[in-house]
């Protein structure tokens, strides 16, 4: 579905895990980009109706891209740059406190 625009020259890459699956991307990309690169359209289900959601605006306004990052819930994937070894996981329903 998504195709990367070619960039000139060699790019440094970073490998993250998306739902346990390794994905390699150019440094500087976001966790939301990693999600779509892994072919995951859905990053979470909503707290109220359980509807599926995935990255949409890619610029920090719609909050549809919330996922778990390194175990922390409700992270806005489109606003977070990937790091080597980052774990990006789907989040189902509302965040639970103290769990």
């Amino acid at each position, binding site marked *: 579905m998504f195709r990367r625009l070619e960039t000139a020259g060699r790019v440094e890459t970073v490998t993250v895990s998306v739902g346990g699956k390794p994905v390699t991307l150019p440094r500087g990309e976001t966790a939301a980009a990693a999600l779509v690169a892994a072919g995951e359209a859905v990053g979470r289900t909503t707290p109220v109706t359980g509807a599926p959601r995935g990255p949409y605006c890619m610029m920090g306004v719609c909050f549809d891209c919330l996922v778990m990052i390194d175990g922390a819930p409700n992270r806005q994937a489109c606003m977070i740059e990937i790091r080597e070894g980052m774990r990006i996981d789907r989040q189902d329903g*509302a965040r639970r*406190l103290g769990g």
Partner: protein
Amino acid sequence: MTDIRDRQADIIVVGGGLVGSAIAYGLTRHAPRVMLLDEGDRAFRATRGNFGLVWVQSKGDGAPHYTHWTRNSQERWTDFAAELKARTGVDTHHENDGGLTLCLSEAEFLDRRALMERHRRDAGNRGFEYKMLRLPELRELVPEAGDSVYGASFTPYDGCANPLFTLRAVHEGFDQLGGIYRPDHAVVAIEHKDGIFRLETRHGTYEAPRVVIAAGNMTPGLARQVGLEIPLNPQRGEILVTERIAPFMRLPTQNMRQTVEGSIIMGDSKEDVGFDTATDTGVISDIAARAVTAFPILRDVPVVRAWAALRVLSPDGLPIYAESQTCPGAFATICHSGVTLAAAHANELGGWLMGADRPEAIAKLGPERFHVS
């Protein structure tokens, strides 16, 4: 072209916030043509920025008539919410499972107990049930209460509703009952001649033999044109909203509640800054710090929005229901706690505004109380 009849009504309500629209909604049972004129998004609009409590405890210390009026509304709220839901399909998210006021020290707890006891004494035959809970008992209701919380007062009367859904439901209900709503119709002047009020807007003039000014913080200037002095001071309050989290707060407190969708709403600042709706980082961090003291598990929960809105406050904090002597048929009203009082406004004012006697329940809530003789 608009027909002349489109510009006439039996009664015109100025101000489409929750106070004006609840009154207009109720008026449809008393008059065939009720019109509601509202300014728009540029206006100060407390209804769009408030906390959504339907709250009884602490209302009317030293003014039992206000406590009674508040309880009249609270007791009507469940039916009001059901009626709105049945009529419009809009769920106001009304809850009435009781509410808490947290006390952070023994001194606060004792003061609170004294206040609750005064309420009980003032309530007379009507009764006023409350419980003072120390931390262990409080934790039976909300296990997440922090170690720095000393205790809380509980009354079964308190609850909450979503103020935006409530406003929408009241507007839709008004429309279905045949009410005429005109948004973007700021009234700039009111003239009274031959028993008719002429309300000037940039879309032309509207006429009725009766008028109710319920324009929130803009009420005094309009009320003066129909011979009413309404003393008022805006008071700023700031509110913070967290991301949605799984439900844990079973009951609202005076300054924190969890919405049906899961957000925690917090804030209860009282700032005397005039007509200024900017937010202040110092106030915001105090609100957040207090929330974390009350419920330490909120420590790493991000706040996603914050805003400020202006309360519509009379000098004694109680509502004002005024009827003009010099321009018969003109009324003005302002109130803090327009969410709490919405059910009373929708049910108990219509007859009076159309010419019946003033309800006994609001006899002491006129503007005369501020006049020095």
